[in-house]
């Protein structure tokens, strides 16, 4: 079948691919500027303490040290990404009076090299008064718990309520009700490039920052808030970025401290967080206590669901408020619950703040929900896939009062997965296949950041040689958005991919865009680029129509650099010639198009949703509890596939990350201290542990998306933990409700089961 597209759907090299395979790609980590200094940050060793005194005199005396700053050198403002709600802006970054977790910054040093800066940290004397601390959210909401932030009742940072239908009445009508508890663990992003920034204040008072970020615009705006500057005096550029996964769109300690130091010295200051700081003093996936109640009729119709969630917020709000909101919404996904109620509480604790991480609350809700669904299926004697089919979302469905689902391929995905499981036939002993369904949003509609700008915006400029330059505030953090946006631009203009250059993530030259989070760039930034390209195209077409003198009833189009009459492709003119003429005809002004996208009338969550079903096969060693991930097969639909190589990469990468979430990744703590802040101790799936992966792409078309495309990045992290849990149960009959599902937990559950069997 020939595609109606020329560029979209092709297997292409990422436009920055050659730089990345030759080592010439420059990351913030690699930036070296003339006269540049190196910074290091001193952090609180106490989970909760008053700062009584900071003596920096000895540190300042060390040869090579150029500046030492503390909270006193700041304006004392507090940052928060929920800018519409001042009480949720609660992070000073450089603490002035009190530290709230082990890792909270208290001072920063700039010196001629990293070793000198580090030496200087040891010379800073901080006198603390340790305060009682609280680590578990269930403890923190007790009356007499220590207060993490003064005046916050029961340490409740924020709560969320979502409800539709008549839940209590519906439960009364159910034939069977299950109530289950789950615990979702923490997870670290482990970007290969740690947080880093080079901040450079000029003597003109303007700030230039190179940094590894998911949203240059957010960083620019938050700098403006914290430094009391006009945002146009701040230029933030994301270079090649060594991963983000949700960890890099708030103003972080590297960015802020580098700027404060540079402001004092008018010299560039570079701060690269150590791997230990990355684990202990950035942000992490939100740990959650989940209480789920699910009611069904005998025939498997799900009538009602109730979710109560308490999340471990850590010391600050960060993006955790959004995770609280989204976990509540996605607890209903991807099923048609006529009655649903959610109450979520985010609780402050004296631990590293929890925030956004790929999936953004949905991996938690999906693990709990999909585990419980399998339990319900067993109770009712219904096949788990059948139960999902019976209740699964369908196209053009409205989540009452919340969201409109347009395209939805969940049922096709279920069919495909069922087919592949059947094909596998009888499994070896102690193997099991578990299934989980999922869905996710294509960018959020909410605007707690309070941006006055469009959510996405792009400018396309056509140069005299016909090549197109795309300017977008979107950030390529490795997910390949620059390539996807270039493909969209090329397709819209009918030119080759190599005819498109992308300038992204630079607030100095690109229109604001909210950046790479919430799986928003393909749909939102993509729509903005498509519209900008379309505007250029219409200008070109004016000239082409004039030149060709075609009857005005005919439509013109461009394909492969050839402007022609639709239906009569042989009648046309060269795109490149027309561009030359057009620019000449416009008095030498390059052709420019602008595009933007802000969702309107699309409900409260997102303009579009992707869906999928995943089947994970495990093989369990029943004597030790150790199991291997054998295979993970995913039926996935994300609308029109723009960059198939990119989607495969997202999917397989998500399995590494989400498989780790299900199997081994965790951040155990002792009195607020993370016990495994190194890659040696934080267990990650490596190549020998990686399962076989198969992808079954399901064809759908999303009317809201550019060329019918929607999200394909984060949603893929949602199902794996649940699928693993269900697979372990299928294999050996033990159910673990407490992530991660480690061999030790499986072993203990097997022993427990054996004991019960003997007791009978």
């Amino acid at each position, binding site marked *: 079948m020939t595609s109606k597209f020329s560029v979209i759907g092709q297997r292409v090299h990422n436009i920055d691919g050659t730089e990345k395979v030759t080592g010439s790609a420059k990351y913030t980590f*690699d930036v070296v500027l003339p006269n540049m200094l190196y910074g290091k940050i001193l952090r609180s060793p106490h989970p909760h303490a008053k700062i009584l005194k900071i003596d920096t005199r000895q540190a300042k005396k060390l040869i090579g040290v150029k500046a030492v700053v503390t909270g006193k050198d700041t304006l004392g403002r507090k940052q928060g990404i929920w800018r519409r709600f001042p009480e949720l802006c609660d992070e000073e970054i450089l603490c002035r009076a009190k530290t709230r977790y082990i890792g909270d910054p208290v001072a920063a040093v700039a010196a001629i090299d990293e070793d000198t800066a580090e030496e200087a940290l040891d010379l800073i004397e901080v006198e603390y008064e340790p305060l009682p601390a609280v680590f578990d959210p269930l403890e923190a909401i007790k009356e007499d718990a220590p207060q993490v932030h003064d005046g916050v009742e029961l340490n409740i940072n924020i709560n969320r309520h979502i409800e539709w239908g008549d839940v209590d009445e519906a439960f009364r009508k159910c034939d069977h009700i299950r109530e289950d508890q789950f615990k979702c663990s923490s997870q670290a992003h482990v970007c290969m490039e740690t947080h880093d920034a080079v901040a450079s204040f000029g003597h003109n008072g303007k700030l230039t920052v190179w940094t590894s970020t998911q949203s240059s615009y957010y960083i620019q705006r938050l700098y403006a808030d914290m430094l009391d500057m006009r945002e146009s005096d701040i230029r933030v550029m994301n270079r090649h970025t*060594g991963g983000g996964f949700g960890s890099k769109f708030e103003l972080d300690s590297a960015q802020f401290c580098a700027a404060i130091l540079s402001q004092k010295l008018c010299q560039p200051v570079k701060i690269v967080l150590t791997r230990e700081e990355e684990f202990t003093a950035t942000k992490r996936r939100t740990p959650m206590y989940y209480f789920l109640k699910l009611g069904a009729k005998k025939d498997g119709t799900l009538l009602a669901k109730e979710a109560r969630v308490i999340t471990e917020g850590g010391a600050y709000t960060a993006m955790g408020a959004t995770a609280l909101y989204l976990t509540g919404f996605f607890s209903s996904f991807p099923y048609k619950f006529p009655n649903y109620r959610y109450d979520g509480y985010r609780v402050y604790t004296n631990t590293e703040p929890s925030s956004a991480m790929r999936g953004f609350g949905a991996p938690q809700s999906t693990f709990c929900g999909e585990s419980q669904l399998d339990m319900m299926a067993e109770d009712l004697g219904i096949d788990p896939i059948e139960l999902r089919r019976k209740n699964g979302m369908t196209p053009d469905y409205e989540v009452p009062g919340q969201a409109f689902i347009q395209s939805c391929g969940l049922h096709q995905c279920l069919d495909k997965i069922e087919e592949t499981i059947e094909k596998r036939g009888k499994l070896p002993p102690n193997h099991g296949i578990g299934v989980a369904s999922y869905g996710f949003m294509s960018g959020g509609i909410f605007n707690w950041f309070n941006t006055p700008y469009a959510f996405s915006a792009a400018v396309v400029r056509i140069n005299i040689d016909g090549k197109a330059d795309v300017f977008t505030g979107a950030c390529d953090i490795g*997910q390949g958005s620059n390539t996807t946006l270039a493909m969209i631009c090329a397709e819209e203009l009918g030119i080759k991919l190599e005819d498109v250059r992308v300038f992204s993530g630079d607030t100095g030259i690109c229109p604001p865009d909210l950046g790479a989070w919430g799986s928003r760039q393909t749909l939102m930034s993509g729509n903005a680029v498509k519209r900008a390209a379309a505007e250029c195209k219409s200008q070109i077409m004016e000239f082409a129509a004039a030149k060709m003198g075609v009857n005005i009833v005919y439509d013109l189009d461009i394909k492969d650099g050839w402007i022609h009459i639709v239906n009569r492709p042989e009648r046309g003119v060269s795109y490149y010639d027309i561009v030359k003429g057009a620019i000449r005809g416009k008095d030498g002004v390059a052709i420019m198009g602008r595009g933007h996208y802000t969702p309107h009338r699309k409900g409260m969550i997102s303009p579009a949703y992707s869906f999928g079903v995943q089947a994970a096969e495990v093989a369990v060693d029943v004597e030790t509890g150790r199991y291997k991930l054998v295979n993970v097969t995913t039926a996935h639909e994300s609308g029109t596939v723009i960059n198939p190589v990119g989607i495969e990469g997202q999917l397989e990468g998500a*399995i590494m*990350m989400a498989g780790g979430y299900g199997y081994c990744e965790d951040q155990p703590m002792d009195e607020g201290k993370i016990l495994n802040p190194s*890659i*040696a101790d934080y267990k990650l799936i490596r190549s020998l542990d990686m399962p076989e992966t198969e992808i079954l792409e399901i064809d759908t078309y999303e009317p809201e998306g550019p060329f019918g495309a929607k999200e394909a990045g984060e949603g893929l992290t949602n199902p794996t933990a649940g699928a693993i849990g269900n697979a372990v149960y299928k294999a050996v009959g033990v159910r673990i409700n407490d992530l991660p599902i480690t061999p030790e937990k499986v072993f203990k559950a097997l022993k427990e089961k054996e004991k019960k069997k003997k007791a009978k």
Partner: protein
Amino acid sequence: MKKELKLKVNGQPYELYIKPKTLLVQVLRDHVGLTGTKRGCNDSSCGACTIMLNGMAVKSCSILALQANGCEVVTVEGLAKGNKLSPLQRAFLDHGSYQCGFCTPGMLMSSTALLAENPKPTKEEIKEGIDGNICRCTGYNSIIRAVTAVVKGEYKEAK
């Protein structure tokens, strides 16, 4: 007290004076200026700093530079011959075996060393060959496919 270090990097001889505590990765990045080699951890666990030392894959963050005195080093910058990418580099491009690209230099060096030593590795051997390198983006399988394609002879050394 600084000491003399002589080594060849990508065929080019260098004579440097360094503090004994300098790690090989620091010499390559900060003294020689080859920033393709990355650092992703502080305890020899991530593999982003992998280079070839006398033909062997090693972690350049876990070797004192002086220990490499008189050795030949190849970094990611040394893989292409002029403007011709190596077979593995081309296979990585075709198979999307990189995303953020931060682990890619290390991955390429591990894979290159593997094939230099064992031109026909099995899939299991390929997995083992890159097991010392963490990639948080790709899930490894696209890297394994790229190496497999080179093993199958789908990418010839450029003339």
